[in-house]
């Protein structure tokens, strides 16, 4: 795995170097392929409080009671007041919907749903075939690789593998992460992501106080990268260093072309800021075809409904995704972009003694975009038919979900997810 990553880094550098920049920019402008934006809800999002089962409200309410006092249940009256109820038919007005309710803080997403831009996948999760699916590490790993990956046979992500086949074009890798980390989901055999952190303007070469000395330092640094490495890890560091210096100028060109001054405020929100950087790259015509962003804080074992926890997080995410979509719509680019959310696992229906929920199985996934067929997919898990661990039975295999997204990127998902699944039809 590590070797192939290294091999790619060298390859990417060579191809980036060999093609004049202006040609690559033209190529990117002509592209009409789907751009996929994946958002990890890190920690295991409680699907039952994200999409509330109004049709099973009594059972839901019972399970969400905190025996020491209080309840984790989202009130159906609050859903009514916020107008976030919905039915499978997205055209049903919120006032008449009776089946589900988005969390009352997700009014922005509810509005998009009413426009038919949002697919809600119910009961998505990892099947019991992975006995460790309730572990963060295993859950995230399976979701990243698109497979039940108990032995760690692969560290390659489903998006990275898709681009192994599709290939990339242009001066940047086919995928990018905007949260400093290189997530497994974007790693392929022959490609690995561009990784940006913070505002695009941070992606520069820092070299001291500037001027001639700075230039001399950069020259020496980049020259050193052309020499062979004496040790294995230094080889990795050298390839990365070399690739990084070549990406800096390209990213700065795009950043300057789309400063995002007209983007709505992202103040105080990391996920909003991450999506803004993605929107800027898309608006500037970057050749990148898949992006990764992450929002932390979903591991709500205790005090789940207190400030800053689940309710605020889903509200923030709803606002962040909606402003991102609306911004791109205003630029005439929303028809290219598909947003999807994923999370480690769902949570336990029954509240625990510390007013939180523990690790469970199925959660909910949103897919958003002009190419998406709005509505509900899969069945909401039956809260009266829990398994021996008190968890719901998953309704949509996560591999089926991923399978449809890989297909939307333009390649055969079968070898990646290790099987063939019927199309869910949301895209």
């Amino acid at each position, binding site marked *: 795995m*590590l070797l192939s990553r290294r091999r790619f880094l060298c390859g990417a550098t060579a191809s980036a170097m060999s093609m004049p920049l202006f040609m690559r920019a033209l190529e990117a402008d002509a592209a009409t392929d789907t751009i996929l934006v994946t958002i990890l809800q*890190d*920690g295991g999002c409680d699907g039952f409080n994200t999409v509330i089962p109004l049709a099973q409200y009594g059972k839901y309410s019972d399970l969400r009671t*905190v*025996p*020491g006092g209080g309840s984790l249940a989202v009130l159906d009256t609050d859903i009514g007041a916020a107008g976030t109820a919905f039915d499978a038919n997205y055209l049903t007005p919120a006032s008449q919907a009776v089946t589900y309710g988005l969390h009352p803080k997700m009014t922005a997403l509810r509005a998009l749903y009413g426009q038919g831009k949002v697919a809600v996948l119910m009961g998505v999760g990892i099947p019991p075939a992975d*006995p*460790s699916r*309730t*572990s*963060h*590490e295993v859950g995230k790993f399976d979701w990243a690789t698109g497979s039940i990956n*108990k*032995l760690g046979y692969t560290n390659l992500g489903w998006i990275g593998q898709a681009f192994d086949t599709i290939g990339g074009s242009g001066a940047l890798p086919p995928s990018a*992460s905007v949260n*400093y*980390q*290189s997530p497994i989901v974007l790693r392929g055999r022959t490609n690995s992501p*561009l*990784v*940006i*952190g913070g505002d695009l303007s941070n*992606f520069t*070469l820092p*070299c*001291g106080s500037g001027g001639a*000395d700075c230039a*001399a*330092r950069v020259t*020496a640094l980049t*020259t*050193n*990268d052309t*020499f062979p*490495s*004496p*040790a*294995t*890890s*230094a*080889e*990795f*560091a*050298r390839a*990365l*260093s070399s690739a*990084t210096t070549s990406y*800096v100028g390209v990213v700065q060109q795009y950043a300057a072309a789309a400063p995002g001054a007209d983007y709505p405020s992202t103040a105080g929100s990391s996920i909003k800021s991450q999506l803004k950087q993605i929107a800027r790259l898309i608006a500037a015509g970057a050749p990148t075809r898949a992006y990764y962003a992450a929002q932390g804080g979903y*591991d709500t*074992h*205790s005090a789940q409904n207190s400030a*800053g926890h689940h309710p605020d997080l889903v509200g923030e995410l709803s606002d962040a995704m909606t402003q991102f979509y609306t911004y791109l719509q205003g630029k005439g680019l929303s028809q290219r972009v598909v947003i999807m959310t994923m999370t480690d696992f769902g949570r336990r229906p029954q509240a*625990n*003694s*510390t007013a*939180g929920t*523990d*690790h469970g199985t199925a959660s909910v996934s949103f897919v958003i975009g002009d190419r998406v067929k709005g509505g509900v997919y899969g069945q909401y898990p039956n809260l009266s038919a829990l398994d021996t*661990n*008190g968890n719901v039975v998953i309704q949509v295999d996560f591999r089926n979900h991923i399978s449809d997204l890989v297909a939307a990127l333009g390649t055969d998902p079968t070898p990646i997810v290790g099987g063939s699944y019927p199309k869910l039809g949301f895209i």
Partner: protein
Amino acid sequence: MPRLVCIVLAAACMAAAAPAFASEPTFATTFVSGVTPPGAPGSDGGVDVRGGRYLRVTASGTLALGYGACPRATGPQGCAAAFSPARSAPAAPAGALVAAFVNASGALVSSWAPVGEAAYVAIPAGAARVVFRVNGATGREFGAFHVVADVVSERTGRNVQGVSASSVSPSGTRHTQPILRAVPTGGLSSRADLQHLLRRYGFSDTPANVTAVYRGGASGWLAQQLDPANIDDSALAAYMEPVPLAGTSPQTMNGYDDYRNILERRIIQREVASKRQLLEKMTLHWLEHFAVSEDKVNSAPAMIHYEETVRTDALGNFKTLVSDVSVEPAMLLWLDNNNNDGSHVATSPPNENFSRELMQLYVLGTTQLNADGTPVLDGSGNAVPAYSDQDVKQVAQALTGFQRTEPYPLPMVDPRTIDGTKFFPTRHAKGPFTIIGQTVTDTGDPTIVGKVVGVLASNPATAPFEVKELLQRFVTESPSPGYVSRIVAVWNANVDAPDQLAKVMQAIATDPEFYADKQSLVKEPIEYTIDAIRELNGAQAAPYTASMRTPYNSVHGVLSGMQELHWYPPSVFSFYRPGEKESLLTNSLLLTRWGEAVALSNRATTTTLCANCDVNIDFTSLTTLAGGTSAAAVTGYLMDALADGGTPELSALVQNYLGNNGTTNIKGAVWLVLTSPEYEVN
């Protein structure tokens, strides 16, 4: 999440959670170390005296009168005066600390006797341990003693067991500094091997010190490092900020800044200046293994206490370490085991957060492992889970009933002396429990922690899981199955030994494979920074004084910029997963490193040292060491110090950059080495 919660709020919360003030629990006279049964939580197991003929105990500590004397209305600050240790003394007040010998079953074989001056006491026949007890007079004492027990064969003879130090606090927290025996190791064949050892088992060193160690022999260095209690580290104290007292306001613990900065600076100061380098590296290992973030804990006393516990056990016994960490207030707060109520498990299931991570991350991992670290496979070739969700629930129930109860108001004492955890039987789910197929009996007291940890630690997956992680952090990301099994054998042979981890670390470094994969690990930002400072002989200009307002603040800033502040791991998974050090380098994080390398290299000075700065890299003395100020001499020195001699190509580039004057562009030259791929790895 709000990070700045003032002490007044924290105290109020504690008041709400704790029993009414009038019936404030007393903290004295009841704690007995090491009785029933030895090694269980609530006791420290005492000190092993087997094989010795005489015992010499020296104790120091404070015994202060607490509670009752402080009117609640005066609040934490007002109480500070009342709590000033009226009865404290450098040595224990006569009779305040008593000791007795017990046999292997924990039964007394002597009467309790006061611990006096450093006098030799004959060890009675049948004695297995010496245990200690705080013998307060009024029932309202609190405090702690640091006990050093020498077990010797002759009154003036050499140590049989080495030195043990045990800190005894009245209400049950204890730390046993294990007996660490120095064992000779093989000599090293090259200076590069030695530099490898110094970088992996410490934070590297200056070329001059590398030479000194090389002449003295690597085996001697390793033996010393494995026995940190015997390394005189007294010089360090002068360079460290004092530990803030518990009762001071967190916002201004040293009169001007926030305690979070102090915590970070203190650990940086240790890593830079402590002679106990392996102990610091092991402490870092366990702080990453049991990653706890101050962001959620939000308590200075809890974090300071936690760090002390981890450091105390870092080279000791794994089960002791896990048991101790499990009931640390910081851990209770971090993974939601604080106030976890097990009184109604059927209708109100306990929180499983700590239980799950205890098994998955802290002790045995998700899948069953063979002794060589490879996964156990079932008939279909699939991995087999190490535990089930039912086990998670059982362990969660077993560990209910603990509560963080630091005294209110926080006394003006060293936070490391505060025992902030209490067990409430009424909130505990009574056993027995079935954990991974084993029945665990339950007597409804804190001994349940040791029992649970004992079952988990005896799981066949534990040794290979832990050993593999140690090898991945200290040696290679892909240790061979043979290497894993050799170290697992040492782990298992010493599973109850108080110096188990020292023995394991010794075996790791004396295995031939230790030197097979040099420069194969990406440095984590802490290593990147501390190594550079040590290799370039960076230091404070003078010992710490109160007027020195920001010691190590710039290093703090460097680590913050590179997103690796010791106390802020992003999650329970720490900064990176074992075997994934390369994940620390991405395009973005590499650029961040280069930016922070500017700050680091700017500490290099050829002029006046900054008196109040945390780090000066004094190039006037370095050029002396380099043998001149020529570009060639300085380049050679930098290559030797930072890059194991470097590559000819990098040398040529740096020398060219420096031109004909070795010192004018020294900051740029240091930056060039720090940003080279050669420096990124160790």
